[in-house]
């Protein structure tokens, strides 16, 4: 990751290379194939959260009119920019975030990315290109795919204007292949959690997912996951669990609470509980990418992500996942500033409990804004579960 961030920063300082900023489930493969170094503000937001710097930055963004009720990735990232600070400095010795040449977002994951990217579009006076995805999809239809793949094709034209270079379709297919391979390897890693005891935790996943987010489409990600999987497979052979005495298995739905990963992982471990799988980490699995139909398969993959589906589809997926990973209960993280990726607000926990007998817990918190999270309340909630089973 250090090399990745250094390379983007260097590209941003050079006249020869171009930098694109992309939303985390945005059309990265097209940007890479067009010759851009790709930077993901959401990864930067997560880093700010994990370094417990978010509250410092959020209030700065609030002061210029960005509400504390909107996405705290957005407010912490913009706040850090306003204060001319970045955790990249301490983490990777990178002096600043890379200045972009274009900003590209996809609304498949949330609607607030457009306002986030528009802020930077105005700041840097550069083009902002949005991919608009139909939302809450129940049955994915050909028209949905065409609508988005056409936008991808138009994006290529926009990018050619910026790079002054013809788009390399052969390289694009290569990138698609690498991205697919990365996805399959990442999926294999996540699926090792089906073992009992699970060799991994959700918290491991939130760290190891960085290449699937930031390096997909590049060989480095493929190499990383090959190595990671070989280590995890050794653990499975040795029947080595991620925690010592796995008695209870949880499924995590919703965003991670970045500033409390360690705290939460320790509370679960102390209670012989492991959060083995999540919808969140699974969001970067694009196994249906195909070099034969690169635009269409990309459109399909990016539309199919969990967060972009209807309540009915989400319900079905959650039930299947809980069975697949043999979980004793599902934890919903109700993230105060992330309504799009909070699935406990329209009766889902109640439906899972009443229709399928699935046990549910709701943790109130936030992805970055730790003022919305209570250590004590959450600890009591997690500890009470083994006491009642």
């Amino acid at each position, binding site marked *: 990751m250090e090399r990745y961030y250094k390379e983007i920063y260097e590209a941003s300082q050079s006249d020869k290379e171009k930098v694109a900023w992309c939303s985390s489930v945005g059309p990265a493969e097209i940007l890479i194939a067009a010759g851009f170094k790709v930077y993901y503000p959401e990864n930067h937001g997560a880093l700010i959260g994990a370094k417990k710097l978010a509250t410092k930055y959020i209030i700065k963004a609030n002061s210029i009119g960005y509400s504390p009720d909107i996405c705290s990735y957005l407010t912490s990232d913009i706040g850090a920019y306003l204060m001319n600070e970045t955790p990249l400095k301490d983490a990777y010795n990178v002096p600043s975030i890379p200045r972009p040449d274009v900003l590209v977002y996809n609304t498949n994951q949330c609607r607030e990315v457009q306002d986030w990217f528009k802020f930077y579009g105005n700041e840097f006076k550069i083009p902002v290109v949005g991919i608009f995805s139909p939302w809450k999809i129940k049955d994915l239809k050909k028209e949905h795919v065409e609508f988005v793949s056409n936008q991808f094709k138009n994006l290529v034209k926009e990018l050619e204007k910026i790079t002054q270079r013809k788009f390399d379709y052969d390289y694009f297919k290569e990138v698609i292949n690498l991205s697919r391979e990365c996805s399959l390897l990442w999926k294999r890693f996540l699926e090792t959690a089906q073992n009992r005891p699970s060799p991994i935790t959700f918290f491991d996943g939130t760290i190891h997912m960085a290449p699937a987010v930031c390096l997909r489409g590049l060989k480095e990600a493929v190499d990383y996951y090959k190595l990671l999987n070989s280590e995890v497979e050794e653990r499975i052979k040795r029947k080595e669990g991620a925690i010592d005495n796995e008695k209870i298995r949880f499924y995590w739905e919703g965003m991670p609470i970045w500033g409390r990963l360690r705290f939460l992982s320790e509370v679960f471990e102390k209670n012989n509980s492991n959060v083995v799988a999540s919808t969140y980490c699974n969001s970067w699995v694009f196994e249906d990418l195909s070099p034969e139909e690169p635009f269409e398969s990309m459109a399909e993959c990016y539309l199919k992500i969990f967060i972009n589906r209807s309540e009915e589809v989400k319900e079905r997926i959650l039930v299947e996942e809980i069975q697949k990973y043999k979980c004793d209960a599902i934890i919903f993280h109700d993230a105060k500033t992330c309504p799009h990726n909070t699935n406990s607000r329209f009766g889902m926990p109640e439906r899972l*409990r009443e229709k399928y007998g699935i046990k549910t817990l*709701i943790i*109130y918190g936030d992805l970055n804004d730790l*003022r919305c999270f209570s250590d*004590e*309340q959450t600890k*009591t909630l997690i500890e*009470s579960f083994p*006491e009642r089973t």
Partner: protein
Amino acid sequence: MSFFAGIDIGSSYTKICLIDEKKKIIAEDIVSSGISFEKTSKKILRRVFKKINGNFKINDIKVFVSTGVGRYNFPFKKITKTEISCLVKGMTYYFSGKGTIIDIGAEDVKMVQINEEGEEVDFKMNRKCAAGTGAFIEEISRKLRMPLKKLNNLAEQAKKSIEINSFCTVFAGTEIIHLIREGKDIKEIARGVFESFVNRILSMVKVEGKLFLAGGAVAHNPFLLKVFEEKTGITPLVPPNPQTLVAFGAALFALENKKKIDV
């Protein structure tokens, strides 16, 4: 004679309950939790021992179960349990049947659904927000410079109520001052405070079956029972010791564990 103790170290108050082998309550006490849970634990032990008799010592207690937010801060050898399990344990000692337990503490409200067998089937807590917790009523009473007892008495006398927001404790206080300035009836305002409080709790949980209430807010605000009954159509069941019920549940766990641990 063997004794068993449950200590519930809450955010505002620490409660203790000592029982004998027949589950008879020998002594109970409540003190402010203060800023050192450890010191408070020692203080409440001294007080409760004195209540029993001057010669009672810590070694006379076979097992301690500590619960509440400060459960790990109890400085003597103990078993820890969450307040949720202790609450269910205590409540199902007094009552049976499927229902919803609502425990209203100083800074949180816990809502537990139990089945016919008295087993916990679902559990919820409030968000990180004081509305719907004892802190709400305490804050209003502070703002009005009126003891809780008086607030209860006034509310009981009102024939109707004035609606007060239930989303922010601080602004509900400001709203009340505004209503007083407007010359509204203080009795109706007082009743509005309790209705707003109960509305907030009922927005967090669907009451199914019987309604069991506990917690400091219930102990100190008897008018709440009437409001709960009006809003749900269910007569609430309240144990004799609503504020120390969780400590009592912890003491029952202590008794159950007497053979399991080496003391």
